Every structure is written in structure tokens, then in C-alpha cells.
């Protein structure tokens, strides 16, 4: 985590840095190319969303037709509504449960702790397809009808894990004595939890939530296995459309979603940066 700390001023006595700095290295050029390639697909989608010609690669003039079409597309808007509902509810539940996991694991020693730890990180490691299959089969075995709420329940599982990981990292950096001081000064455990620990954890919880929110909005496999016929999330709707080829209105949707996630990513980085700075001061 030291990587995020505001860096100390350059050490003029570091000979390595001095020797390497002015040169234009092949690694630098290569990295430049890789940065370009990382953003190329995003760039292409964005540019094409304004292209008048729907299918050819050539530029046929600027248009906002695809955006207009998108905003009058009932199915897309309905899918977006479903996705947002799923993400908001799942993240809200996961924020509470994930923080409980992080705090509980940091605070208590108990038999089976490693097992519990392993279980809580499992969703981040096991491939989505396996989680999706397992959840579907389990719900079918219990004869639970699939709906938007089964998607939420399944999303809470992985959202919880990501929140727990992010909060754990933050928790590891905290000063444990602050909470103890509060207890010594006569605060009840509940008071010290809500008035001392929680405010310190807030930036971590927030950045964990943003990550979980984006992952929930992005999930295609788990949602399509647990949705049944009742609900369609945005990735499911997009998938069914792009399967059959390139669609200009999906380009417009992509450009919007990409700007949206970039905004979330940057704000998450900002919150983390701020929390790191607070820690140093």
C-alpha cells in the first residue's frame, strides 16, 4: 500500500534515477504503445458512436442519431433500471456484511478462522461461470422462483467479498489504540464502533462499495443464470444484441457506460487517495 502514499521529493543522490531519467528507453516506447492499445477499443467505440454510417468502418459524418435512438429504446431503459436496482440493493447489503467480515476477522481469534477467511475470499477467485451454475442449481433444488431478487442475493455474495477485501486493507493501516482509548475513556463498545472505528473506515467502505457497484453492473454470467424469465439486466440485454454483430446504438450505450464507469473509478481512486493522506497526517 506504500504505493499510494504521496511520494517524497526525488532523492538527488539516487544514482540509478539520475542515470536512467533522461534516456528514451525501449521500455518507455513499448509502454507507450501498450497504453495506446489499452485505450484503443474504448476510443474506437466512442468514435463510432458518433459515426453516421451504421456498419462500415469508414467515417461518414457526425451524428447524434444513435444516442437519440438509445434514449427512446424502452428495453434498454428497462434493463438499465433493473441493473441499477440490483447493484444498489446488492451493494447496500454487501457494504454492511462485508464490513462486518473485515472487522470481525481483524478483531477476533477463533477456531476455523482460516476457513472462514478462505470462504469469504472464495467469490473473488472462483470463476463466475462456476458460481453462476452453483447458484442456479441450488435455487432450482429449493424450488425458489428466479427473479430480480435472486440476482440480488447472488450479487451480494461477490460484492461482500470485494468490500471485505478493501475494508480489510484499510483496517490493517488503522491505529488500533484509538478504539482502545475510546473504550478506556468510558465509551461502550457500540459507541466506539460507530463513533471511532466507522468514521475511520468510511473511505475504505466507500471505495469498496464503488468497486462492488461497478462489478455488479458489469456482471453478465451470474445475472443471466439467476434471472429467469422475469428480469433482464443491462449486460444481458447488451449481450443478446451484440451476439448478432455490430450495433451502432450499442456503441452509443458503450460510450455512455464507459464515461460513467470512468467517473466512478476516478472518484474511488480519489477517496482512497484522500484516506491515505489522512492516515499520513
Amino acid at each position, binding site marked *: 500500500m506504500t*504505493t*499510494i502514499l504521496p*511520494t517524497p521529493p*526525488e532523492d538527488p543522490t*539516487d*544514482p*540509478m534515477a539520475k542515470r536512467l531519467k533522461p534516456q528514451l528507453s525501449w*521500455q*518507455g516506447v*513499448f*509502454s507507450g504503445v501498450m497504453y495506446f492499445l489499452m485505450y484503443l*477499443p*474504448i476510443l*474506437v*467505440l466512442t468514435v463510432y458512436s458518433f459515426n453516421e454510417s451504421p456498419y*462500415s*468502418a469508414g467515417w461518414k459524418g457526425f451524428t447524434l442519431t444513435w444516442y437519440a435512438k438509445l434514449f427512446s429504446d424502452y428495453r434498454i431503459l428497462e434493463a438499465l433500471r433493473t441493473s441499477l436496482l440490483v447493484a444498489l440493493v446488492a451493494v447496500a447489503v454487501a457494504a454492511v456484511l462485508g464490513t*462486518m*467480515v473485515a*472487522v*470481525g*476477522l*481483524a478483531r*477476533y*481469534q477463533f477456531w476455523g478462522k482460516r476457513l472462514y477467511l*478462505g470462504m*469469504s*475470499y472464495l467469490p*473473488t*477467485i*472462483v470463476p*463466475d*461461470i*462456476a458460481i453462476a*451454475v*452453483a*447458484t*442456479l*442449481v*441450488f435455487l432450482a*433444488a429449493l424450488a425458489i422462483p428466479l427473479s430480480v431478487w435472486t440476482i440480488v442475493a*447472488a450479487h*451480494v*455474495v461477490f460484492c*461482500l467479498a470485494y468490500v471485505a477485501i478493501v475494508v480489510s486493507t484499510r483496517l490493517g493501516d488503522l491505529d488500533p489504540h484509538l478504539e*482502545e482509548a475510546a473504550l478506556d475513556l468510558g465509551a461502550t463498545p457500540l459507541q466506539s464502533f460507530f463513533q471511532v472505528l466507522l468514521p475511520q473506515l468510511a473511505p475504505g467502505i466507500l471505495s469498496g462499495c464503488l468497486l462492488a457497484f*461497478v462489478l455488479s*453492473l*458489469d456482471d*453478465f454470467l451470474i445475472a443471466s443464470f439467476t434471472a429467469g424469465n422475469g428480469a433482464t439486466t443491462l*449486460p444481458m440485454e*447488451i449481450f443478446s444484441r*451484440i451476439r448478432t*454483430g*455490430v450495433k451502432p446504438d450499442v456503441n452509443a450505450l*458503450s460510450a455512455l457506460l*464507459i464515461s460513467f*464507469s*470512468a467517473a466512478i*473509478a476516478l472518484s474511488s481512486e480519489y477517496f482512497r487517495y484522500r484516506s491515505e493522506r489522512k492516515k499520513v497526517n
Partner: protein
Amino acid sequence: MTESVSPVPPTPATPEPEERRSRTQGLGPWILLGPPGLWLLLLLVLPVLVIFELSLVPGIRPGDLVNPSGLDNYVEILKPIYLRVILRTVGFAGASTAICLLLGFPVAYWIALMSPRRWRNALVVAFVLPLWTSSLLRSYAWITILRPTGVLNSFLATFGIPQLDLLNQNAAVLIGMSYSFLPYMVLILYSSLEKLDRRLLEAASDLGATPVQAFWQVTVPQSIQGIAAGSLLVFISSLGDFINPELLGGASSMTASRLIYNQFLGATQNWGFGSSLSMVIILAVSAAIALLIRYGDATPKT
């Protein structure tokens, strides 16, 4: 983001000193860890057990009675046609891991050791930023680039280079996978290279090592844990990847996850077979993680 992609769960805060441990735990652990544990048990652990049971039932369809009767579904996987799918899946995962390592190492090296220090954090964030955008749409973007009338071919045509038909080929799947998982590799390699002791590199060069020698004998051994962790993460992610093979690959790029998808949401409904394939994926991933943990611990920390 940094935390989210670590394949090895970060260990929570170090055990507290005696004063803390002596505090009575009481109901605390149950109140804090009970509800999330129950949720995970119900929606993660139990389901995996259920698909294990289901994987023992041959030819089951929704609505049938579960009557575990043997390993037929696992034997089915060994049929040449399915074995080829498994091998192709592992091949894709291995190849995309190699590509990510090859492309990611110079980038991580440059950011960690050669870029201006004050830019480093921004450079890392910039490289992983595309991860925050929809994986579905990023694969879709490659269709726009790779299709016969796409960006790549228009670009090649302006130079008079013959057209490439990459879409619906294995090459397109590899491009998509490598693109999707490269940021993870760079992130993990970066955090490993960033801790590299530069004085060792200096010492090596003072003692007459060429840059190439220094790289292989100092840099690589020092960052071997990062290399192992990054490779494992990319390997696992590629192994379970559904979107890239489905969207960018053709009928000939069938992978395990596509096969599983078809057993449940596709034309061929065979839940037992799909469950056994899922169990194989889960076991493969667990084995890979166990290997990393053993390997990671065995590495001497010089």
C-alpha cells in the same frame, strides 16, 4: 483496485497484543461474522456441494429427481470431443498468461523503475482504468476492430497490406483475453517490482554484469513472487472466461465455460454434465491456488 485483484487474500490485521486478546470475546464474533457467514454458506458453499451431488447424476434435466448414481458425467468429459475442449481451454489460458507476462513485464518495469517517480501512481491507475469499464463492451469493441470490414483492416488497406480475417478465430479469442487480463498482470508485477532493491542492480552493474545478466540474475529472481501471482491470476481468469471465447471466437473455439453455459442456458440441457464440468473448473482453480501458496511460501525471501 489494488486490493481487489490480489489472488492471495491479504491477511487481516496482525494478531493483537495480549491486552486485546484477554478482552472477553463474548457474542462479538457471532454478531459480526454470523450473518455474512450464513449468507456465504447458503449461497456459495452449499450450492457448490449441491452441484457436486448433481454432477453424480447422469443425464439429469430440470425437474428430474436427484439420484446420485456414479461418475458417468466425469467419464463423459474424457470423451475425445470434450477432452479437446478442455485442452483448448487450458491452451487459451496458458497462451494468454504467456502473452500477458511478455507484454506486461516491460510496462510494469518501466512504471516501477524508470518512469518519473511522481507520476508512478497516476501511471498505474491509468493502466488499470479500462478494467472499470464493462468487460462485455471491451470484448465487443474488439469485434469492431477485428471484423473483416473493421478498423484493423481499413488501417491495413491504406498501406496496401492484405486483409486479415481474425474474427471468429482462436487468434481473436487470445487477443480479447490478453487485453482483458493484462491490467491485472501489470498491477501485480508493478507492486512486486516497486519493492525491488535498486542497490542490487547497481551492485550487479558495478561488478561487471551486463544489463541482460542483471535482469535475469537480479530482477527476475527478486520479482518471482509477483510473476507467479500475476500469472496465476491471469491463468485462472482466462480459464473461466466466457465472454471473449463466446463473442470473439467461432464455433471452433469452444471452451469449457461455453460448454457449461450451453448445458444450462443453451440448446443442450444437461445439468448433470454441466455440473461435473463446473466441478472440474473449481478443482482446477483450487489446485492452481494451492500450488501458488506452496510455491509462494517456498520462495526464499532474500
